[in-house]
């Protein structure tokens, strides 16, 4: 199915179906256009924002948080940009949830164009896309911060920040949400990572609560256990495993740390990758968690 198969509808402020929470914010849009199911805005809505330049860490966070949140009935809202937005929307759909995308352009303009398929998928899964712009409005830089106030406005649970630079649109959204009295959570990251500076800053300043697991947001208690596959490994593979448990490393670094020949390390890494114990990205090898148990 195509996104065009869903009709564009519009609703004016004051209408019965106009999202209530959106009408309560300062300068709420006079009229909004939407495709899909607008009723889902009455459920538990969590805004998720984050960097367009997401790292593997951000992806891991999404994979850890979203499935649990969805299973607790949370509907995610994001800005349909690449990076965290796209990742959150597709992860939500993957685990059978519903998601809302707020466009910074008209609903007949797909921006970024790579997300055309995602657009249709959101609608097919009973989701919602909405925008305050006429259907053919082009994306402009100034429209995105505008769009952010809608993302913040429709949330009921609050806003979660996953990876954000110190000067980023994600922090703009978070500040807006804060001024609207919404709750803010931020996922801390390594202090030397550029895409975690914003989130760490928010936590340090007390603007956001720290979230290290999805239950922090749902205010429930349980702790995560990290588990790795350890059986079926020979002595050498276990040595590599122990190294990688601390941080992701390149083949050269592994070979140096173990003072082992590079050819032997390479072949062991392949075997472990095929077994699914480790993964590789950008030349660094990392451990793949067997399952996320809470």
């Amino acid at each position, binding site marked *: 199915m195509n996104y065009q198969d869903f009709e564009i509808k519009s609703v004016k402020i004051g209408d019965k179906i106009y999202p209530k929470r959106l009408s309560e914010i300062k300068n709420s849009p006079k009229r909004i256009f939407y495709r899909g199911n607008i009723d889902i805005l009455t459920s538990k809505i969590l805004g998720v924002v984050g960097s*367009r*330049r997401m790292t593997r860490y951000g992806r891991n966070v999404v994979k850890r948080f979203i499935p649990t949140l969805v299973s607790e009935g949370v509907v995610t809202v994001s800005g349909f940009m*690449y*990076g965290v937005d796209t990742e959150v929307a597709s992860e939500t759909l993957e685990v059978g949830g519903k998601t809302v995308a707020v466009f910074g352009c008209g609903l007949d303009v797909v921006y*970024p164009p*790579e997300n055309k398929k995602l657009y249709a998928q959101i609608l097919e899964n009973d989701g919602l896309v909405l925008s305050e712009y006429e259907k053919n409005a082009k994306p402009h830089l100034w429209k995105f911060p505008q769009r952010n106030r809608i993302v913040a406005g429709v949330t009921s649970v609050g806003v979660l920040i996953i990876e954000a630079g110190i000067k980023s649109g994600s922090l703009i959204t978070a500040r807006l949400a804060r001024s609207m009295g919404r709750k803010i959570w931020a996922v801390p990251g390594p202090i*030397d990572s*550029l895409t975690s500076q914003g989130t760490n800053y928010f936590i340090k300043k007390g603007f956001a609560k720290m979230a290290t697991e999805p239950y922090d947001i749902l205010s429930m208690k349980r702790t995560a256990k990290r588990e790795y596959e350890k059986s079926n490994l020979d002595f050498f593979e276990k040595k590599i495993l122990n190294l990688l448990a601390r941080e992701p490393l*390149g*083949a*050269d670094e592994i*070979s*140096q*740390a173990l*003072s082992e020949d*590079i*050819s*032997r390390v*390479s*072949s*062991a*890494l*392949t*075997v472990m*990758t*095929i077994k*699914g114990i480790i993964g*590789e*990205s*950008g*030349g660094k090898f990392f451990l793949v968690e067997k399952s996320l148990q809470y």
Partner: protein
Amino acid sequence: MLTKVMSATHFGLDTLPVEVEVNIAKKGFPGFNIIGLPSKSVEEAKERVKTALVNSGVEFPNAKIVVNLAPADIPKEGSSYDLPIACGILRSLEAISLPSEKMFFYGELSLDGSLRHTKGVLLLALYAKERGIKSLFVPKDSSFEAAVVSGVRVYPVENLAQILSHFNGGGQIGVFRGLKEIDIHEDIFPEIDFSDILGQESAKRALEIAASGGHNVHMQGPPGSGKTMLARAMAGILPPLSEKESLEVTKIYSVSGNLPAGASLVYDRPFRVSHHTTSRIGLIGGGSNPHPGEISLAHRGVLFLDEFPEFSRGTLEALRQPMEDGEVSITRAAGSVKFPASFMLVAASNPCPCGYLGDAKRECKCSPRQIMRYQTKLSGPLMDRIDIHINVPALDVDELMERGVVKKPERSISVRERVLRARKIQLKRFEKDGIYTNSDMKNKHIKKYCVLDSAGQAILKQAVNTYGLSARTYFRIIKVARTIADLAGRKDIDATCVAEALQYRVRSSD
């Protein structure tokens, strides 16, 4: 009086005989004309020949001179017709007497009557041998390359005066005695040694495998990580050319005018570097009279393409067929020629336009779309033809020093020894197959020579399922595994070889 002198022209790597007919008519309006589709350079031979003859003490006739280059329907190019035309005129003037034996004259004249180094002499000598023509008169500077061919008499001509005396019963030109034996360079002194490069052990290992099996390599990494240095150091670990290979390479260099004066054979394995503004024809070869491109000049050697994705898409895709076939056929209006192009491609690229995607220290400034466009420039089919893909990470030198575990890096010379050993195994294996290295193997050779033990088979099968490898990639991995086994001196390919080879497979970027 009419005289016929034999010479030759080259089309691609083929040589065709050309008969230079000179007629000097006493009657008619005085003039000097060359016919037989001469190009500008042949047309200008008139002035060179005339002045050279006058400066050699010959009185140039005030008569109607017609030079016909037969067959008349093939376009003639180059300066090699100067000597045959001059000899034809001398003979027509009865200043010299040519014997009835067929002999080739070939070479460019200088205005003072001396002969200059001319391209394509090696091919002429090979053709003469094939046709049973015993005597060649070629410029002295070019006679070294002709002397490589046994069974022909090469007369090194310094100037026209020598020709005059040789064919007048005066002082003879001595037959050129070539170099006694072919001097294959056992030692080379590369500009960059492997030991100059700190760290990057996995990249070095990959290059060692590539050099051993003649595999194509693609290196990806941020700027300053040492990709270019690694590629240049590669020249120092390549084995020397064998005699047969050397002849193949020299033919191309001779015909394209890349052989310096006084050189005989090309001994060092070619290492060609092309900038990304190189045109498609410059890289692949072509032109109305087709000449070899960089890929042919890199035949039996290395072609290094830095900033790989910056090459135009058309140029990159044009590399595909020659990479697969080891030769390139170029068809133009004048006909179709084949140039050998069995080269080893070493390509280097950044992960994204700004270069810092995935870098720990610096932020990447590219938009995802830019990155996608940059990476899709390297199409699947092209990357499929590259056997070895490696990541060259940026290194923190201070950190390397601090850890203090940096082994003293190995010198190129000892890496080269292992490469030579692996090549020797391959040469012996492919003795009867007409190929030289593992990368040249076709599927039938793979079936014959690449026996995987059961564990090796199992891991490869698993990898095919896990990574969804294409059939071509599958065979590439076996070829690389074969080379790894050769380096280790193993007869069969075991699981560790396959597993290491899998590290060098093409990865989809995420």
